[in-house]
C-alpha cells in the first residue's frame, strides 16, 4: 500500500466515510502526495457544502397551484358538460317514450277537480325547487373546497 498511491475513488470514499479501512489512514500519514490530494478533496467538499441552494425568481407554490386550479376547473367543466349531455339525452328518451301516453295522462288531470290539480302541481314545483336549491348549495360548498384559497397550505404536518 505504501508504494502505490491511493486512487481518487479511495480517497473520496475515505473522506466521505464510505470506507473505514485502517490501511488508508496509515498510508495518508506516510504519503505526502496522497495526503495533499486528500486535503484538496477535503477543502472542495467543505466549500461545496457552503453553497446556498438555488432558487427561482417566481414563487413555486403560487405558480404550481395556479396550474392545478386551472386543470381542476377544466376537468370540472368537462365533467359538467358530460353530465348535462347525459341528462338531456335521458330527458329526450323519456319524452320520446312518453309521447304516445300524453293524451291519456292529460285526460287523468282533466278529470280531477281544479283544487286537486293545483295542490298536486304546487307540491311538485315546491319539491323540485327545494331539490335544485339543495344541489346548488352542495355544489357551491364543493367548489369552495376545491378552488378556494389554494395558494396557502392549511394543513400543518406534525413536527418530526
Amino acid at each position, binding site marked *: 500500500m505504501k508504494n502505490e498511491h491511493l486512487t481518487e475513488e479511495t480517497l473520496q470514499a475515505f473522506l466521505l466515510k464510505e470506507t473505514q479501512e485502517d490501511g488508508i489512514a496509515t498510508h495518508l500519514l506516510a504519503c505526502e502526495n496522497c495526503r495533499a490530494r486528500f486535503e484538496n478533496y477535503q477543502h*472542495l467538499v467543505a466549500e461545496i457544502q457552503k453553497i446556498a441552494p438555488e432558487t427561482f425568481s417566481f414563487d413555486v407554490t403560487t405558480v404550481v397551484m395556479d396550474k392545478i386550479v386551472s386543470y381542476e376547473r377544466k376537468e370540472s367543466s368537462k365533467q359538467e358538460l358530460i353530465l348535462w349531455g347525459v341528462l338531456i339525452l335521458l330527458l329526450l328518451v323519456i319524452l320520446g317514450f312518453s309521447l304516445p301516453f300524453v293524451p291519456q295522462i292529460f285526460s287523468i288531470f282533466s278529470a280531477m277537480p281544479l283544487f286537486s290539480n293545483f295542490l298536486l302541481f304546487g307540491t311538485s314545483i315546491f319539491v323540485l325547487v327545494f331539490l335544485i336549491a339543495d344541489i346548488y348549495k352542495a355544489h357551491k360548498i364543493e367548489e369552495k*373546497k376545491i378552488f378556494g384559497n389554494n395558494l396557502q*397550505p392549511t394543513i400543518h404536518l406534525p413536527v418530526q
Partner: protein
Amino acid sequence: MGNENNHFSDRELIAKILGGNTQAFAVVVKDTEKLVTQIVRKMTTNADDQKDLVQNIYLKAYQNLSSFQLKSKLSTWIGNIAYNTTVNYLQKQKIPILELDTKLETKFALTENPESEAIRAETLEIIQAEIDKLPPLYKTLITLYHLEELPNKEIAAITNLPEGTIKSYLARARKILKDNIRYF
C-alpha cells in the same frame, strides 16, 4: 422511525388530496419544492422553460397521485418525476446530460484558509462556476449528494441509476472539480 412518520404523513396528505381537498397539494409543493428546484435549476438554464417544467412536474404528480403506492417517500417519488421530466426535456432539446465540456481547462487557484469575507465569497463563486460547467447529470448528483445531503439509495431512486453508477459519477465529478481548482 422518521421514515415511518414520513410515510404516515404522506398517506394522510394523499388521502386528503384524493378526497377532493386540492389545497392540501400546496403542502406537498412546499415540502418538495427545494428538491425539485435543485434538479430543474441544475439540469436546465432557460428561465421560461424552467417555469413550465416545474408546473408540468407537479401537474404529473397531481394527476398520478392515486397510482403512488407509498413504496418510497413522496418527496423521492416527486424527485423522480422531476428528474424524468427534465431528462425528457433535455432529450427533446438534444442537450446531452453526460457530455463534458472539453474547452474549459481553466484552473483556479484558491487559498485553503480564506480569511476575508470577500475571499470567501469569491471562493464560493469560483466553485459554483466550476460546478455549472459540469454536465447536467454530474451537477445534479453533486447537488443532491452534497447540498440536499441525500443518501446514494435515495439518489438512485430519483435518477433510476444503480448506486454503483452514482458513486462512480460522483467520484468523476469531484475529480474534475478538484483538478480544475487548485488549492495553495
